[in-house]
């Protein structure tokens, strides 16, 4: 009887997960550009503190210890994870409105790949962080994560500016300036 209850619980958990994923995917189909923009987390991602040495100049120059404290430690990691998730949805949205433009779609596909790698790296780094091992590989990975995060942001920005300039008006309304 106990095993039947465990089986039922396992089945219910998976069913619940599958249904919630399905509902979320349906909601995602109806998302507008404004709704997506409102989800970008500007408060906690500490972009300003990271961006002084971004990839447009000479790469991330600051030491990993400083970088770790500037990004707000695990809070910053969570913010990066959530923001990249929103950026992935932005890319999804851009893909749906540029359905006939093959070159733009190939750029979007590459950007999505980069964003997924970034999210995966956040999970790996979180595991390192949980074990309190802030040495060697952790520092290397942190630097690579920030590099990738900026690449994703820059990629989406360039894509919007080049191919979807109409969407910038809504962005200005939401955040004031670019």
């Amino acid at each position, binding site marked *: 009887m106990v095993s039947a209850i465990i089986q039922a619980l396992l089945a219910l958990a*998976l*069913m619940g*997960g599958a249904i919630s994923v399905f509902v979320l995917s349906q909601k995602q189909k109806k998302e507008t550009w404004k709704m997506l923009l409102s989800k970008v987390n500007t408060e906690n991602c500490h972009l300003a503190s990271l961006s002084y040495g971004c990839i447009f100049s000479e790469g991330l120059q600051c030491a990993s210890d400083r970088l770790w404290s500037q990004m707000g430690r695990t809070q910053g990691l969570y913010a990066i994870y959530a923001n990249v998730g929103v950026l992935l949805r932005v890319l999804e949205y851009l893909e749906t409105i540029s359905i006939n433009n*093959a070159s733009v779609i190939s750029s979007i596909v590459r950007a999505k790949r*980069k964003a997924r790698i970034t999210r995966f790296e956040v999970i790996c780094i979180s595991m390192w962080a949980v074990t309190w091992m802030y040495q060697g590989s952790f520092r290397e990975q942190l630097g690579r994560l920030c590099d990738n995060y900026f690449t994703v942001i820059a990629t989406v920005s360039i894509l919007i500016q080049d191919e979807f300039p109409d969407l910038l008006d809504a962005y200005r309304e939401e955040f004031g300036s670019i």
Partner: protein
Amino acid sequence: MRDLLFDRIILCWVPITSGLCLAAMWKKGLLGVIPAFCWYLGLQMATSAIGLFSLSNSQAYWDLYWIASVFGYICEAAVAWQLASRVCESVKNEMNCVMRTTGLICAVLCFSIGVVSARKISFSMVNEPANYFLQIDLAFDEARVLAMSAILTLTCVFRLSARSIPFKLSLYLSIFSATSLAARAVQEFAATLSDSRLIFMIADLAPLILWCILITAFGFEVLAIYATPPREGFGRTASGEILETLERH
């Protein structure tokens, strides 16, 4: 007699729906996306068709059920592996070896949990070999639920497009796996009741009926939504070249 008629109807439905789904995938050129799934559909078509003819002979039907289940396990394991590879495709080049090792460890872990859990249950109404077989069947069901939970979590981490085939397939297979295990739990519960024949029969047929519905829906979605993807690298924009420079950096 009435049970057999119902079984015949379901067994007719399985190859038809599987065939329709396979045809839809073939029409859209998607047979190569998850090849193991196509093999699995083909196997289901074949075994259901043979099962339909051997339904009146219980020994032949039982033998066929054994063989079909063993091949089914192999195919389902291959589907889960290929599905997980597709879901993790973006990061595969970055950390191929790590991903494979993690995947293997997860698969072994899922199956071990299933075996340990299933070994505690004894199906007293059947003889010894059949008891072992039912335990393996249950272990596989539990392992499948755990594996599909992991795959579904990965689809959320990588935020797969709602239109992509791996996303849809993992969603449908998750629903099916959950229903199968729930049906088993209902059967175990029904075994404790005095008159459980009807509940037992419904729980036995429910996953099959759901499978037919899900596979038909999947086939229709493939036909209705999925468009052939654009060729990568066709044409270039200024932003595309800048992006490549950024990636190299």
